[in-house]
């Protein structure tokens, strides 16, 4: 249902594209490694990494499992706050703070997922939205820890020391490659998951949930696991985002972010491996250009988004893939 507009061509085709697809992790990472060389704004480039990773996590649930969540800001924000609080309040090193952010994201996903996967379609979207709003207000209230409305400040990681070598994260390029290391691991893991038997199981659930159950797939457990995995990738993105900005704004938990990750995924191409990063690049580039030219930049983003959904429902990458496969 969600992916009914995808390629109608036969699946058999052997071209250079399939070679790229076979080494998709490497292809993504080469493209991302080269990004700062062509992108003059290095801070924007880091945003593309973190938001692209967030969209990858979202895409695992939305594009591959067929479940539309409107509450993924909760996991992005939990990752950001979990990591940020560990650094800002407890002075923990980054290599402990990031797993703590992941842990908080996983905990929330286990709770929210257990409630939300009982419903389907638009009801699932609404339940995730409602529960994510609960998380938002809990973090707003716990202002001793989170800084409330003012956000969390002092998430400072000045340098990374590895085996006696010191990399200063003040240098935006160094920060970019620091974040890229995590993105690389995550993307490699995601690729592995999608190629595993579980990857086949989630696609079967997306294509036809009832048939999948009749075939013996344990649909609710599959959905639950996909939900938690998706949240883990989102939380990692949030944690890296916190380190990147040195602060966590309450905005990270807001439904705008949940909407934004959906837009990024749709822009890039849902259910495609490269799509989330292409979408993040497009979205943030449009945002960057539009904010510098007119006051109501959301207007421009909205127009572009509507045009894409109407005329290129497969998203930028999905459409390009379609052309190249012809």
């Amino acid at each position, binding site marked *: 249902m969600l*992916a*009914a507009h*995808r390629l*109608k061509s*036969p*699946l*058999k085709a052997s071209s250079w594209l399939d070679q790229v697809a076979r080494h998709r992790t490497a292809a993504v990472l080469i493209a991302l490694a080269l990004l700062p060389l062509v992108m003059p704004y290095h801070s924007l480039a880091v945003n593309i990494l973190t938001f692209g990773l967030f969209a990858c996590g979202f895409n695992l649930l939305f594009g591959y499992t067929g479940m539309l969540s409107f509450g993924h800001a909760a996991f992005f924000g939990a990752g950001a706050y979990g990591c940020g609080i560990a650094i800002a309040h407890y002075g923990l090193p980054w290599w402990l703070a990031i797993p703590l952010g992941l842990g908080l994201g996983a905990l929330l996903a286990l709770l929210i997922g257990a409630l939300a996967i009982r419903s389907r379609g638009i009801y699932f979207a609404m339940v995730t939205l409602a529960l994510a709003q609960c998380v938002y207000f809990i973090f707003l209230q716990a202002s001793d820890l989170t800084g409330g409305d003012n956000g969390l400040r002092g998430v400072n990681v000045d340098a990374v020391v590895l085996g006696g070598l010191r990399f200063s994260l003040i240098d935006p390029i160094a920060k970019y490659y620091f974040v890229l290391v995590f993105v690389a691991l995550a993307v490699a893991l995601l690729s*592995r*998951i999608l*190629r*595993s*038997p*579980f*990857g*086949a*199981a989630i*696609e*079967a659930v997306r*294509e*036809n949930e*009832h*048939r*999948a*159950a*009749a*075939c*013996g*797939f*344990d*649909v609710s*457990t*599959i959905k639950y*696991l996909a939900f938690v*995995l998706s949240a883990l990738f989102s939380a990692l993105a949030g944690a890296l985002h916190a380190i990147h900005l040195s602060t966590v704004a309450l905005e990270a938990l807001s439904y705008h972010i949940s909407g934004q990750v959906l837009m990024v995924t749709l822009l890039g191409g849902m259910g495609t491996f490269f799509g989330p990063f292409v979408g993040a690049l497009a979205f943030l580039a449009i945002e960057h250009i539009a904010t510098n030219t007119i006051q109501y930049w959301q207007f421009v983003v909205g127009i572009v988004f509507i045009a894409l959904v109407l005329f290129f429902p497969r998203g930028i990458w999905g459409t390009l893939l379609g052309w190249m496969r012809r």
Partner: protein
Amino acid sequence: MNDDAILVAERLTKKFGEFVANKDISVRVRRGKLTSIIGPNGAGKSTFFNMVSGALVPSSGRLLFEGRDLNGLPRHRFARLGIAKSFQITNVFPLLSVLENVRSAVQAQHTQFNLWTPRARMTEYVRVAEALLERVELIDKRHLRAHQLAHGEQRSLEVALALASDPKLLLMDEPTAGMSPEETVAMMHLITQLARERTVVLVEHKMKLVMGISDRIIVLHHGELLAEGAPDDIRANEEVKRVYLGSSGQ
């Protein structure tokens, strides 16, 4: 008298609110035989089938599969126990390739939560899937997406999906629905072949189609068991004649 029954229904009842779709149905399905459930539209055939396949939970009564009570089992367990169903309405994975449709159904019996091993290394599932596609004569179309198949071919894929779990009990809900006469002949031929190696239960409302190939016939009418027996007994049954010939004339 647990002789040769693979499936036993005891006073099986299904209500939807006030409406009683199945009422006190008690039947025994014999192992290794081809049993057909017939009855006019609305007789409760599909409801009965949906309870046996786990899609519906009975309101009361019991279902025993190989002596095991099916009550309360989650739906996905039915396939693992050895019960599989091919659906009346074509029900495949539309955007997956024909091969991947069957391959994932085969895989479902063995592994679902393995996040690590590449599927490309699990070649045995592909081999089983290809053998099944060979059997339903879809092997040449294995690289097409399922939604690109003609209607009759999708029905065949449907059967291959049901066979993927190598079921002991194969339930087929109007497998020839919407098929051309040629396709119907081929499907009936396939069904008789399948019935030689496993227990098959067929739901059909075309009485003529099943009389020649079935070992046993169960007749439902208004949600109740009207008659059960060998085809010849059913043909001679006055009540069945009245229900069938009186109403639709089939």
